[in-house]
Structure formats: C-alpha cells, structure tokens
C-alpha cells in the first residue's frame, strides 16, 4: 500500500511517528521517574510523619471515666458511692441506621416503649458526638447479648464501669444532688474530652455539682487498636483511673434516712443540728426525687410524676421553702423582752383578744388565758401577752433579736440560692412598700405572721442558738478541728427561763403534751407554731383543700437542761402544729434510742403503704401503666435543673398573708366556739393557733 503513495510522505509520516512515539516514551519514562521520586519522598523522606499518622490511626486512646469520690456521713457511712455495673451507650454520629439499631437494642435489652421514646429524644437533642445512655445496671446476660452483636451495631458501646449509687435514695436527693451526662453547655464551658466519654457523669445539683472538681478524679486511659469504624481489635495497655476525693459531711446517715421516712405522706422538712458544734445532723426535704433514677437520666414518666406532684418534690424546702413561722418565734420575742428589761413576772390579763387601734386581735384561745406572765405566755402560746408587750418594747428590738438568731440571713453552705426570707421592721416596710409601719404590723410579727418569712434551716439555727446560747452557724462539711462557736451574749438566767417555759410546753401544762419523748431522764423542750396560709375568709386552716391548710411548725431541743440536739420541723399544709411535733418527737427519739424510734416508724409505714421507696415504686408503676410512652418528653437535664431552680425561687409566696394589708373581717367572723369540734376553732384574726 505504501509503495503506491509518495515515498517521501510515507517516510516522513513514519519518521513523525517514530519521533512522536519516542517523545511519548520519554514522557512515560518521565512520569515513571516522577512516580518513583514521589514514592521515595512519601515513603522515605516523610516516613516519620506518616508513621506517626498511621500510629495515631491505629491506636485509639479511650478514656476510662474516673470513679467518683464518695460522699460520706459523719461516721463514714456512704451517702453516695459507686457501684460496678454493665452499661450500654451509643454515639448518634456513628449509627448507620438509627431505627434498626434501636429496635435491635430494644429486643436485646427488653426496653419499655417509654424508655425507648426517652432514648430517641436524647438522640435528637444530643450534639451527635455526645454519648447517649441506652441502659445501665444491666445483668451479664443482656450485656453479653449486646456485646456479641456489636459488628452489626456500629456506634453502640457496651462497657463495664461504675455508676453512682445513693444507698438511701430519695432521703439524700436534695442533700447530695444527683449526676448525669454532661450537657452541650457543659461541654462548651469545659472543653474536656472526658465530658463526652461514654459513661462519664457530671454533678447536676447540690453537693454533686458544687464539689464536682473534688469528686471527679482523674480519668484512666485504655490504648486499643481499633478499626476506622471504632471496633476494638485488641487491647494494648491500660492506665488506671484515680478516684475522686471523698467528702465527709456532718450528716448522720441513719438520722437523715429516718427523718425522711418519718415525714411520710406529708410535704415538709426536718433539720437537726448539734447544739455543741452547729453540725447539721440531718437536713431532709420530702418528698424528693430518687437520685439513683435521676442519675440514669430523667425519664418521661418520672418527670410527669414529679412535676405533677403538688408536694413539689423538686424543691429543696429546707433552703428554699419560706413559711410564716407562726408562734415558734415567741421564745425569741420573749428573750427580746427580757433583754429590753421586761420583768418576766409582769402579767397581762388575756380575755381572748386585744383591741389594737380600732381592731380586735384575738388570742387563739377565745376563752382567754386569764392572768398571763412570760412563762405562761410561752407554754400556753398566749397571743395577747405578746400583742401587749410587743407594743411596749417596739418592733426594732424584736427584729434585732430575730436577726441575731439567724432569721433573714443565709449561711455559708455549699448550696447556691438559699432563700433569705423576711424579718420585717419599720425601715424594711418603708423601703419595700413605701408605707409607714403600723402597730398591727408589730402585733402580726410577734406571733410570726404578716410579713415574716423564714426557711427551715433558719428555724433550726435559731433553735440551736437559743438552746446553746452559742452563735452556731450550720455546718455541713465535717471539720473536727473547727473553732468553737462564740457566745451569743445572752444572760444565763434569761435562757434558763425560756428553756423552762419551752420544757413546760412539752412536759407540763403546754400546747404539745404529746411531744414528750419516751426516753427516761431526757426531757425535750419545744415550741409549736401554726401558720396561716390563706385568710380566714377562705378557709379555717384545719381541713378542706390541702393547699389552704395551715403550715405546722415545731422547734425543739433536748435534753432541755443540757441542750445537745436541736431540731426544726416544718410541715406544709399539715393543718397546724399537730402535724409537726410528732415527727420532731420521733426524730429526737431516734437520737437517743434508735430501736424505739424505728418501732414507731414501722407502725406508721404499714399504714402508709410501705417505705418511701416502695410507695414511689408503686406510684411509678401506676403512672407507667397509665401513660406509657405517651407522657410528654422531659426537658433536658439542664432545663430540668432550671425548672427546679425556678421552683425553688419563690422567695415571696404569691400572696403573703398579711392581715394588716387585707385584715380579716373580725366582728362577724368571730363565731362562738363550736362545742362539737374537738380542736379549738381557730382565731379569725391573724392569731396563731397552737393546739
């Protein structure tokens, strides 16, 4: 063929072909050299860099959450400890097919529908890289069932670790707090990889939160060889964690739990203080959430149950519940009288009421107490005695004494947001309401009504100071070398008189005869108090709607002649002090004879339907059966916290019962004593009504 063509062209074409093919070959050779050079650069020159990168791919450093420091009571009993458990977490980002994975987990772990719905909520809310707890406290069989199916469950992390355990459950909920997985906000605040380690929990409330850094400890680490998808191929080495530091409280664990159980079905608080040191021996607010189940994450049913409870289990009533103290203020008002120079034998004739200005203020006892001196004024809780002399002495002296006793102040305790309450005086009223102080304000304040508001911790501090004559400040962290409290500067004969009067309340002719403690040789002194919640035009305070019943107070100390323990009990809407002093009596009994106290409690609990734990479990079961997964999702942990805070921040009740501001109509509302009703009909005025 080529011979037919011009030979020049054929030859030139072949020549072109050869030249260009040679060029092609040269390019190919050049590329080959380039590739070889590149290979040498990567594999030899950059070897160290890429070797390190490969090692960091291969070796996975996973943190082991440190064991949390224990919270101990004064005798070394655990209030919060750790329990070894098996748990399963998942990391939302690493899930291939969330729905399939969840349904597999549901059947493997037999999760209830509401639990599954909770997990889905948490996955939706989490930031993807944050672990979400699926289940904890698993038995070995379930844990193993998940572990063997791991290859088909990417993003699921079963592990054995430690979980927080509160042996006495709800009894220490408000005291110690609870733990939970770190929230997105926590991670923003503290950019620590430990926070997004599966199984790690951070303190969410109370002591757990305040002492977070001390309790946390140092995480351990495990070096493993893992695939790109996170499957562990083999272990390379482990560094043990360093457990967090324990904290030891002044609390007596047994007393704390006893008091919590003894409150029973009521909503209230008990504070017990050591009169020698100011140590808090018990600080109980009930009802309360169970910190054990809160620490597993707040489930929807639990949240519904707690948030619908009108006994506000989310509020720490010891620090944040504010109540008019009622007649419990009378001993310190009397002490103010003594310091102001009033002769304790000065008397007033109580005829059932006292006219102040153009109004009659009634004594709780409409029949009147007759000739009344200071002793009788206290043990009979005669209102007229105090109405009368308070006007003489003046509010400033009384308010000053109240503040000395600790009312209106907060204490250096590791809890944020204590409520101060109110100790009213003329300057305060002018500042707050721009109104002049009126005589009836003094009258109200001397019987712990009107503007007066206190929290149970202040009550306990007051009674411990009154009992010991020492300026105790409540202490929660045990310090055996703390300096002794200074003297209050009271005269001993004044104190003796008040103590004797308070002893008479319980052991004599007083208002709380049934509060006598069954311990031979130990006499308890106390003072009752009943605080109106609503004006008498709305209810009589004894029965009827729970929310409108009177609060019941009792403050006490024992032994009366050598005070060792002081106690304050406040029962919300208990219908009067009769709801409070039996609890105080049994709690104080526990301090001297645990068996006797326990026998009484066991008897009560058989009537109430079991222990606190049994009753909560029954209630939960009822809710679960009723609502199941249909209950609305709980707010995130932090929002729940905020909500509890909001719950806690009502320093001022919505409608302070100040009869001065809206005085109860007295003439027509003073009925003749009803002979049929066993308890005396309450005073229609602002009078306290101790039984």
């Amino acid at each position, binding site marked *: 063929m080529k011979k037919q*063509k011009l030979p020049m062209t054929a030859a030139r074409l072949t020549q072109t072909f050869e030249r260009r093919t040679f060029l*092609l*070959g040269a390019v*190919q050779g050049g590329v080959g050299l380039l590739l070889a050079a590149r*290979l040498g650069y990567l594999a*030899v020159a950059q070897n160290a860099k890429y070797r390190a990168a490969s090692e960091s*791919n291969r070796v996975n450093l996973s943190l082991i959450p440190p064991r949390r420091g224990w919270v101990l009571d004064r005798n070394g009993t655990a209030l919060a400890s750790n329990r070894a458990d098996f748990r399963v977490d998942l990391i939302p980002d690493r899930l291939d097919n969330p729905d399939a994975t969840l349904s597999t987990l549901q059947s493997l772990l037999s999760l209830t529908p509401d639990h599954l719905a909770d997990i889905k909520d948490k996955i939706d809310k989490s930031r993807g890289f944050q672990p979400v707890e699926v289940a904890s406290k698993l038995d070995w069989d379930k844990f193993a069932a998940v572990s063997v199916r791991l290859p088909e469950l990417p993003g699921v992390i079963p592990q054995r670790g430690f979980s927080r355990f509160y042996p006495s459950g709800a009894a220490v909920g408000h005291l110690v707090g609870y733990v939970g997985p770190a929230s997105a906000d926590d991670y923003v605040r503290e950019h620590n990889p430990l926070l997004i380690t599966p199984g790690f929990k951070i303190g969410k409330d109370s002591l757990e939160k305040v002492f977070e850094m001390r309790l946390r400890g140092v995480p351990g680490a495990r070096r493993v060889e893992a695939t790109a998808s996170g499957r562990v191929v083999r272990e390379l080495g482990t560094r043990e964690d360093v457990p967090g530091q324990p904290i030891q409280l002044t609390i007596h664990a047994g007393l704390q739990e006893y008091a919590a159980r003894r409150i029973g079905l009521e909503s209230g608080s008990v504070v017990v203080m050591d009169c020698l040191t100011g140590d808090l021996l018990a600080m109980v607010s009930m009802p309360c959430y169970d910190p054990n189940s809160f620490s597993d994450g707040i489930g929807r049913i639990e949240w519904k149950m707690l948030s619908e409870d009108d006994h506000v289990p989310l509020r720490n009533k010891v620090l944040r519940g504010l109540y008019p103290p009622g007649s419990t203020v009378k001993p310190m008002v009397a002490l103010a009288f003594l310091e102001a120079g009033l002769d304790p034998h000065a008397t007033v004739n109580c005829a059932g009421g006292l006219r102040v200005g153009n109004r009659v203020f009634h004594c709780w006892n409409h029949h009147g107490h007759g000739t009344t001196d200071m002793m009788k004024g206290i043990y009979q809780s005669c209102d007229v005695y105090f109405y009368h002399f308070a006007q003489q002495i003046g509010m400033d002296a009384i308010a000053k004494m109240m503040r000395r006793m600790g009312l209106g102040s907060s204490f250096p305790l590791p809890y944020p947001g204590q409520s101060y309450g109110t100790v009213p005086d003329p300057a305060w009223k002018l500042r707050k309401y721009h109104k002049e102080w009126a005589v009836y304000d003094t009258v109200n304040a001397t019987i712990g009504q009107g503007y007066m508001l206190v929290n149970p911790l202040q009550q306990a501090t007051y009674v411990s100071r009154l009992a010991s004559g020492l300026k105790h400040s409540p202490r929660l962290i045990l310090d055996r070398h703390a300096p002794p409290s200074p003297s209050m500067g009271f005269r001993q004969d004044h104190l003796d008189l008040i103590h004797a009067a308070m002893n008479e309340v319980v052991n004599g002719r007083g208002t709380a005869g049934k509060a006598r403690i069954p311990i031979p040789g130990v006499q308890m002194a106390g003072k009752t108090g009943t605080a109106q919640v609503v004006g008498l035009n709305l209810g009589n305070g004894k029965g009827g709607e729970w929310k409108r019943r009177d609060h019941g107070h009792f403050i006490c100390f024992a032994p009366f002649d050598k005070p060792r323990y002081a106690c304050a009990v406040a029962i919300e809407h208990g219908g009067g002090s009769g709801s409070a002093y039996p609890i105080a009596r049994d709690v104080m009994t526990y301090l001297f004879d645990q068996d006797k106290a326990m026998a009484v409690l066991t008897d009560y609990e058989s009537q109430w339907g079991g222990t606190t734990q049994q009753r909560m479990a029954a209630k939960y079961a009822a809710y679960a059966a009723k609502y199941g997964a249909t209950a609305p999702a709980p707010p995130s942990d932090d929002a729940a916290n905020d909500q509890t805070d909001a719950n806690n921040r009502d320093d001022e009740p919505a409608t302070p019962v100040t009869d001065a501001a809206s005085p109860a109509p007295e003439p027509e509302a003073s009925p003749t004593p009803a002979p049929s009703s066993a308890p005396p009909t309450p005073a229609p005025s602002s009078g306290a009504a101790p039984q």
Partner: protein
Amino acid sequence: MMPRAYVPQALARQPWQVIIPLSLLTIFGGAVLYSAAGGRLQPWAAMHVIRFFGFLVMAMLLARVPQDWFKRIALPGYVVLCGLLVLVELIGRIGGGSQRWLNLGFMTLQPSELMKPGIVLVLAWFYAMLPMNEIRGWRAIVPPIVILLIPAGLVMLQPDLGTALAISFGALVMMFIAGLPLWLFVSGGIGASIAAPIMFFFVMHDYQRKRVLVFLDPESDPLGSGYHITQSKIAIGSGGMFGKGFGNGSQSHLDYLPEAHTDFVFATMAEEWGMIGGLFVLAVFTIVLYWGLKVAMRAPDRFSRLLAAGMVTTIFFYVCINMMMVMGLAPVVGIPLPFLSHGGSSMMTNMICVGTIMAVDRWSRRAPGGLG
C-alpha cells in the same frame, strides 16, 4: 484445535520477557489482595490470579488473529460498542438510576471499558486508511473528533469522568502519533490552560470546585473528600523503605484506607512492602510499556504501529493516573491499577491491550525486515 506438533513452537514464540514479569506482578497483586482480605484467598486473591491466567490464554489467542480481522472488525466493533453505550444509558434511565454495565447472564459487560481499546483500534484503522497527503487536512481531524466525542459524551453521561478521560486521552495520543500538525496540539494546550481557570470560576458547580480545591490541599478536608488521599498517603508514607511486613498493614486492615483492594491497592501494597515493592511494580510496568513501544516501533505497517502504540498508551493511562492519584498527585478518579487491583473488567481491557500488542509483535515477525 491446534495440531500437537505446533504447540511447542507456538509456546516458544510467546513474548516470555513480558509474560513472566506480568505474571509475577499479578501473583504479587494476589499476595497483596490475600493480605487485604485478612489473610484469606477469598474473596479476591484467588479470583484475581485465576482470572489473569484465563485472560492470558485469551490474549495469546488474540495474538494469533490475523491483521485483516482486526481491520475488518474495527468500524463495526466501534458502532456496536456505541450502540451498547446507548443501550446502557437507556436501561439506566428506565431503571431510574445510572448504570454502567449490561448483565449478559454469565458475566456483566461494561461497554465503556471495552471502548478504551475500541477507540484505539478504530482510529488506527481510520488513519491507516486515510490517504497520506490528507494528514494535514481537515479530513484527518474532524472525523476522529466525531469518533471520539460520541463515546466520550455517552460515558460522561453515565457519569464516569475517569473512563471518559481515558478514552479521550487514548484518542488524542492516536491523533498525535498519527502525525497531525503539531500546532494543533500546541494551540490546544494553550487553549486548555486558558479555558481551565475560566471553567473553574464560571462553569463548574460548587461541589466540583471543592473537589479540585481538596485535591490541591487534601488536609483542608481530612474527613470529607480529602480522606481518601490523606489515608492513602499515610499508608504509603508509613511503609518506609521495606514496608511494615506482609500482613501487617494497619491502614488497610483497620479499614482506614478506603477501596483497599481496588483503586487504592497500590497504597495497600506500599504499606506492607514499602518503597521496594513500589519500585518492583514500577519496574514491571516499565518493562511492559517499553516492550510495547518497541513492538510499535518495529511494526511492519502504519496500522499495526498505531495500534500497538495506542494500546501501550491505554495501559499507561491506567498506571499513570492511578499511581498519581494514590500518591496525591492527581484528584480522586475511579481508575484501577492494572494487574494489581481486583476487578474483572479492567483486567480484561488490559489483557486485550497486551494481546493486541502481542499480535502486532507476531505480525512483525511474519514480515521480517519490515519497511521501518
């Protein structure tokens, strides 16, 4: 059926200087795949080696096909392949997704893969047929461009950028060595270097632009599109001079390296065998390509010369793009490494190329002292 007496002679005439290195390379590839499968022959290694020897027999048979047959099937073959590309496209449209292969029952056929040697064959036929004085005229340019654009366009529609580039590269090299005026390529190159930035800034979609940027700086997106390149470089770089040892490649065994048995098999190999292994692979390819170009230079006529050089180019393109990609010199396009990557279609294409070169070699020995 071949008479028995011919067999030794036929064997003796095989180009053993290529078959032996290729077999070693493939067996080496089998070893790499064995390790990548966690020390198992299944599912890749055994199949890989068996397939090679199957296709080797095919290549030897192809080498015995007379030149006339090649010329005769060049155009019909091209037309049939274009038809198959259209068919694939239609089936894909009906099926509601993109599809690149036809299921023939006993095997799946990827027409775009066959188009790589197909375009070389049809252009070799075209330029051999073209009167020599036309080589500087438009008739030497326009028909090949049409011949190129039809399959390249169809493959782009699939969309398969890598294969379209391979087809285009093969065709352009054919035009170059066929003797088209040099100024065409020079001005084309200048035009492309002007057009590229314009394309980049005004025509490309964001995601395409992102890919280019990630290629230029893979570390900027180490977990996204840069992940492949980064992990591949780590695998190669951590291998060092002698590698981590057979079966000890953590990058591939722990699944950090994506596509460890197909497109990134070179990285899998280099991690365990180091630079030594890499140089061995490069050496085998050098031998094969050098042999191919030598065959092309020695070929007796224009058709066989262009055919052999075109086939060499097709193999070269695979090797070049794949190795540049795994070493971070080219963006990630799905092109396997011949004789190492697991996969039937590319093995078949490459063995067709080898077989065709062997055929050209045979023709030149039949006509000793070719006209040069």
